[in-house]
């Protein structure tokens, strides 16, 4: 199937690849800068002109994070992970059927429902914190990771609905009808035919839901009081308040936060990227 597409000439291939490497370097420079800053000594950070690689390798800022015991990196990392996975599962489970319903059925009030999904995305945190807090307290989940999961899912759901509805609507009707002829009903057609076709879209929604939950600061910080249950973002924020301009410490913390996720994504990206960009509609 791929060969149907025009292949690039060898020369163009090299040229484009080189250009893409340049783009990569420019866009990821902030990350590189954080990494090398974390490996410099405080004196070197203040050196003028700045050094583009650490002249004296300083790993003290990393050691310090293990030593200062009150905040546990690994635990907060695991918390974040648990919360993000939970939120992703809820978001995908609820959003996939919902977006299918909106895309394929022109029921009454459909526009209103679509609009209300949009509206839920529009709320500034200051509106949500207090009422959500009261609800979670009444549900007896305040100060547990479940509160953060439930809150974070509210970011992922509407987003996923709005994105996925495009995928479902781009699937030709005749494909569905062919499924009915094969003896599928609405539900099984949805499960067997439509979800696999919309897989790239589902993938994107899962990733985005995960990342929204992963990056959340306000919910994790408000609905979870105990430091040891809080997500990693709350830890960094705290750390910034504590170490202000001690850049070697701060960047080391940032790197430790980024690396594990980066690894997961680098190892998984083959699946993610191919899932997202493989010819979806061809079926």
């Amino acid at each position, binding site marked *: 199937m791929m060969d149907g597409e025009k292949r690039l000439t060898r020369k163009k291939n090299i040229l484009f690849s080189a250009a893409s490497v340049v783009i990569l370097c420019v866009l990821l420079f902030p990350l590189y800068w954080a990494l090398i800053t974390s490996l410099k000594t405080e004196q070197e950070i203040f050196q003028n002109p700045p050094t583009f690689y650490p002249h004296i390798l300083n790993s003290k800022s990393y050691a310090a994070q293990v030593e200062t015991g009150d905040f546990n990196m690994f635990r907060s990392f695991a918390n974040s992970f648990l919360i993000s996975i939970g939120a992703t599962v809820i978001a995908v489970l609820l959003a996939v059927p919902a977006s299918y319903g909106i895309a394929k059925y022109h029921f009454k009030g459909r526009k209103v429902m679509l609009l209300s999904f949009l509206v839920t995305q529009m709320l*500034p945190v200051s509106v949500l914190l207090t009422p959500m807090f009261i609800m979670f307290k009444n549900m007896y989940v305040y100060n547990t990771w479940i509160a953060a999961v439930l809150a974070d899912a509210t970011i992922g759901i509407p987003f996923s609905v*709005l994105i996925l509805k495009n995928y479902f609507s781009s699937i030709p009707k005749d494909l569905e009808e062919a499924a009915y002829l094969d003896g599928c009903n*609405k539900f099984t057609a949805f499960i067997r035919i439509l979800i696999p076709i919309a897989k790239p879209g589902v993938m994107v929604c899962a990733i985005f839901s995960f990342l929204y939950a992963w990056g959340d600061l306000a919910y994790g910080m408000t609905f979870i009081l105990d430091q040891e249950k809080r997500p990693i973002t709350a830890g960094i924020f705290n750390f910034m308040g504590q170490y202000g301009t001690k850049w070697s410490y701060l960047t080391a913390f940032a790197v430790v936060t980024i690396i594990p996720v980066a690894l997961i994504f680098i190892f998984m990206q083959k699946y993610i990227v191919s899932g997202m960009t493989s010819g979806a509609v061809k079926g």
Partner: protein
Amino acid sequence: MKKIKRMFRYENVGILFVFPAFLYMLVFVGYPIIRNIILSFQDVSAGNLVRGTKSFIMFDNYSALFHDSIFRTSLSNTLRYTILCLVFQFMIGFILALFFNQRFALAKPIRGILLAPWMIPVTVTALMFKLLFATDIGVINYILRSLHLINKNIEWLTTPGTAMFALICANVWIGIPFNMILISTGLTTIPKELYESASIDEANKVQTFFNITLPLLKPTIESVLILGFIYTFKVYDLVYVMTSGGPVNSTHMLSTYSYKLSFEMFKYSKGSAVANVLLLILLVVGIFYIKVTTGGEEE
């Protein structure tokens, strides 16, 4: 008649698919919206939050906002910030999506890595950009100095105009992968046969882009822009961590100002009113979006 009846039942099934998600959002987000609207018409502050009467003062909170200079700044900041961010991140994201849609050897792996800025918690991004834009040790000042574009360090985060610029840079950096990936995925929904027939017709690249790519991408582009608008418009974390609305309130957004009023100054009702203004603007954008995306459909 029979057909209509059948249609009706058929659509009913649709509601059932949507209902669980709708219910979830109604519970967790519907209640806060209503509470917030009520709160904005009351006069709740520290004194009567827990005890005492909460009297309704109707639109007083809203009319007070018109005389509040920080509110006006926040409103114009939010608009300026959102539009500038959208323009840049969409353009760069689009160009990158098209570029990485070419089949060269490194296209897929590098596009994958470029997702990185998106998966980094905003809190960390804010920290990194604070470092890049630092006055004395910031590498951006160094680069500009070496290129002889400036001869004195710019105090990015401590000067009102430039602090906004730094925020926009950070947000665009986060937003590029978002735009790139959604547009990339949108590009895959365009049947390749269309391009093939276009190349048979010997249409040039620009023509193909405007005649095939752009029209077929329209739903994707609409989603990207509208979602981008909504997420940018209610920006909170990035501003809160990077500038906290400073220097001298010059980077306050509606969301950060509402937060500050509610949780730092205990002016709950006024904070709610600010949040409602934000909500109202987004609602208008949302209705516009629904109109545009579902306008062509028969209902």
